[in-house]
């Protein structure tokens, strides 16, 4: 490239940049993470959310009137993304809905080698089948034991709540939230939900324990819970800490390239320095 050509190129690039800047329109505000506020004091245990979820996702819709599911503790499963469990607590019986918590910094996403597990810009943590190689690290890493594997399928998938992200894309709420007859579930931006949750505690300090589960747990989650009794009584883990799970491995992972490339270079340099120069021996001799 000669001087003339270089100047031409720079000139064209500069003009393009300037034009681009002139055309730049006010950009839309950055999307905020969405989530759901669960007020367990409002839940009546009707399990309409379970039915709505199953119906939306094409799973077998539970016979909520006859299956006696509240008599035992249940976990989510490949064809049941959410369950409502009944707890006998110091404050009477309490119903608690469970599903993926949609962490802010999800351990499953950090653990996924192929980026099949993916945190979308608006909050839902989704699983993308084309990328998945079936290692199930997401299941091991999840602090809430949420992702489930279809062990009995010939082409198994990871199954977990995806916060109905396809519905969200059409401006609709998650199916469970829409089905809840008591607004025990409330969908919104986390910023707003936190404000609402705090206001409820502030307005009814005797009705709630003064804690919002999910505000800080594992760095914050998309689903937030309010309760009248300590969360330990409702089967919530209190030992998770407030550090996002990916943080635990970040230092190590950043250290790997340093060790892999830095250490050999250092050793080689030492080797070069300690090696007697080719001419030295002869001079002394």
């Amino acid at each position, binding site marked *: 490239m000669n001087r003339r050509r270089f100047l031409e190129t720079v000139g064209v690039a500069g003009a393009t940049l300037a034009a681009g800047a002139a055309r730049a329109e006010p950009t839309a505000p950055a999307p905020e993470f969405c989530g759901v506020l669960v007020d367990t004091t409002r839940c009546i245990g009707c399990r309409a959310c379970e039915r709505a979820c199953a119906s939306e996702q094409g799973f077998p819709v539970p016979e*909520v009137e006859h299956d006696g599911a*509240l008599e035992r503790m249940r976990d989510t499963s490949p064809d049941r993304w959410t369950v409502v469990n009944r707890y006998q607590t110091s404050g009477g019986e309490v119903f608690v809905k469970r599903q993926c918590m949609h962490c802010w910094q999800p351990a499953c996403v950090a653990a996924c080698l192929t980026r099949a597990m993916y945190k979308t810009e608006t909050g839902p943590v989704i699983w993308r089948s084309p990328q998945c190689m079936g290692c199930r690290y997401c299941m091991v890493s999840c602090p809430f034991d949420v992702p489930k594997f279809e062990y009995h399928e010939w082409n198994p998938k990871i199954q977990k709540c995806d916060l109905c992200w396809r519905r969200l*894309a059409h401006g609709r709420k998650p199916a469970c939230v829409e089905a809840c*007859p008591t607004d025990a579930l409330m969908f919104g931006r986390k910023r*707003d939900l936190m404000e609402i949750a705090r206001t409820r505690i502030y307005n009814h300090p005797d009705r709630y324990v003064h804690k919002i589960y999910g505000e800080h747990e594992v760095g914050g989650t998309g689903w937030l819970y309010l309760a009248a009794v300590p969360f330990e009584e409702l089967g919530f883990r209190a030992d998770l800490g407030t550090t996002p799970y990916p943080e635990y491995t970040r230092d190590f992972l950043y250290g790997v390239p340093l060790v892999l490339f830095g250490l050999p270079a250092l050793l080689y340099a030492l080797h070069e320095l300690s090696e007697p120069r080719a001419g030295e021996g002869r001079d002394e001799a």
Partner: protein
Amino acid sequence: MSRPAGSLAAAGLRVVAVLVVVAGCGSAPPVAGAGEDATAAPRPVVGEARFPHDMHAEDLGFECAECHHETNAARLRVPHEEYFEDLWIECGICHREGEAAATPQSCAACHHDSPASTADETLSAKVVIHRSCWGCHDSGTGVEASRGCGFCHLDGAIGEVMP
């Protein structure tokens, strides 16, 4: 040879997925019944509900205001208080006299689906309507509550969110 094509498709899919999700959350949350066809009886999102209106009003002798607004509700904060001196429920708010079609206003017009702020945390229309039924027909909890859904919502429709 198929690998570049596959990864390209995957990348494309990812871009589309992200765009779709972004578009979804950017738009305002939907408010049920706020459209042009808003009526006093909002269409339930979960199955159609039956409510024998005549039976409640005529046979059981309910006053309109008993269901259509709680008489002991907190005072409504409205911009023109002079119109609402004594009554908690003013029929004229919804049923305007002299108008050819007295279109009743949707409950959701005040009882918002998605509170915009804490100051706006009125109970949503969905909850308010459910509660007014539960005043007499106890919702119960657990299995009882599950069975209760079918009392009004048509069989098999419970939990099946309308498309």
